[in-house]
């Protein structure tokens, strides 16, 4: 009797173990989940490069449109200074540019000092170049595409999560993780959207700041010209002096 009982117990354990073995040994027909992978990252990288291309294009256009007249008005070579300070991404280094422009203009033959005018204008053009990369039509297009990519990514994650919920051959923990992933990616997507908007607001603020800076510089230039021309005017009057 005692032996029979013992046999029964061990047979049950054995059976359970066999069941477990069978269950666990069943081939896990794991689904290969499409990640979007290469496409997704390539898209992001392209967007990134386009941003700098846009800025670079603006800079080269600004050199032709704005810097050249400035050069002619102050009789100095600024393109050289701008070109020398260009970084690997094509945008001039504002600090290096300022320095080399200052050096170029340190000995000026013109009566009206134009260092500040030139350096500030170049700073403004660089600011506007980066602003243009975000705010131009292409920049807006790119922002929209970025958001589209993000949206797709979030949607893909959510779909994965839903599919995970209906998967039977897995543990509940994994399902919960999949659900959390979906939520996190949703949050990340909305953050990406916020950041894109922030970038636009920031660039708009920068554009307005360059306008304010232009206004102040214009006033300073007017005051400078007034001072210098008072001197010239006095010389003109005084050199007429003659007793007759």
């Amino acid at each position: 009797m005692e032996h029979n009982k013992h046999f029964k117990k061990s047979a049950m354990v054995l059976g359970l173990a066999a069941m477990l073995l069978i269950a666990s040994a069943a081939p896990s027909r794991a689904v290969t989940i499409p990640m979007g992978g290469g496409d997704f990252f390539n898209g992001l990288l392209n967007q990134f490069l386009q941003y700098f291309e846009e800025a670079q294009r603006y800079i080269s256009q600004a050199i032709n449109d704005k810097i050249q007249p400035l050069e002619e008005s102050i009789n100095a070579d600024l393109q050289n200074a701008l070109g020398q300070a260009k970084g690997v991404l094509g945008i001039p280094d504002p600090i290096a540019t300022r320095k080399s422009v200052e050096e170029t203009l340190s000995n000026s033959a013109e009566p009206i000092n134009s260092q500040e005018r030139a350096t500030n204008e170049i700073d403004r053009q660089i600011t506007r170049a980066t602003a243009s990369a975000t705010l131009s039509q292409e920049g807006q297009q790119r922002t929209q595409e970025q958001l589209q990519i993000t949206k797709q990514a979030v949607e893909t994650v959510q779909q994965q999560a839903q599919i995970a919920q209906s998967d039977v051959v897995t543990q509940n923990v994994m399902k919960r993780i999949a659900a959390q992933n979906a939520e996190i990616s949703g949050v990340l997507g909305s953050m990406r959207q916020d950041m894109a908007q922030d970038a636009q607001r920031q660039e708009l603020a920068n554009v307005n700041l360059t306008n304010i800076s232009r206004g102040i510089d214009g006033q300073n230039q007017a005051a400078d010209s007034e001072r210098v021309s008072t001197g010239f005017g006095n010389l003109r009057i005084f050199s007429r002096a003659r007793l007759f």
Partner: protein
Amino acid sequence: MEMLSRSFLWKNSLLFGAVQDQASQIINQSAQGSQFISESLDRLWDDVLSGGLYTALANLGILFAVGTLLIFMVQWAKDLIDGEEVRSFSELMWPILVICLLANNASLLSDSTKGMRSLINQVNQTILTQTASSISLQEAYQKVMLEIGSEDLARGILAQCATKADPLQQQDCVNNAVEQAKASAPPNPSRSYQNFLDSLNPLQQGQNLVNTLQSGIQNTLVMSARGLLIAFGMAFQWLVEITWVLTALLGPLAVGGTLLPVGQKAIFAWLIGFYSVGLVKLCLNIVTGLVATLVVNAGDNDPMIFAFAVGLLAPILSLALAAGAGKAVFDALQTVIRHGLLAGGKDVRRGANALGQVTGFVFSKILGR
């Protein structure tokens, strides 16, 4: 200039040259301009005194003269009948003088007016070219003016450096301004101008940037006021000449009214006015020239004080001086005539003869030239 600035040559060869070129161009042009002004004054005199306006005024003067001649003749005839022969004959000098002067569109009067002008102008030239301690009034005046102008130019160029926030840029700006001030300085600077240049040079004086700016910068308002004051003085100088021309233009009317028996003889009033305006010119030139000589010799100059002295106070002073001198002569003549009229015939005769002699002498001198 344009070609060079395109290349990079300008950096070395034309450094600071632009301001110098500009300044010397302004100086040359202005000097030429003032030369043209004083030359064109001669033409103005010729044009006015031989033009249609003078003829018209001469005709008006002749009309006056004919009218007053009738009154004069009546008066003279009355005197003749009353037995005052001697006085009356000396009085006849006036109608003869008036007729001579106004005949042929007052050509004699215009010539003698020009003669009087050239007399005063010769005195004027002698005064201006006379050297007072190695420098003539003209040279001193022009030197001081040119130096104040260059100083103001330097101050104006330096003033813009105060607005530069970047220390490096400010230093560059000050250096450029100082170099430009030196480059555009007039040759042979006086001691006061040299002092000014030295006060700008931070290296020489061991000054820092702030001191340079402090000593070099002047309020734009003050500088403009200086320009205005000097311009005022020059405008006065021009207008004195114009006034002189105008006075000369009124000559025929004064001569025409001379025969009027009442009051002062108009020709004397006119002559005194004419000489008074000439005196204004002389006084102005002497006062400004002496102030300039003072400044050059003292080696110290405050441009603002000079501008007030030369631009504003010298015209006022010269007006007062000339008015005083004119008034003194006028009063003297009036006294002579009133005295002569109140006294008996002998005195009257003596006074009239004296006047006639003086006038005759003056005119003979003028016409003789």
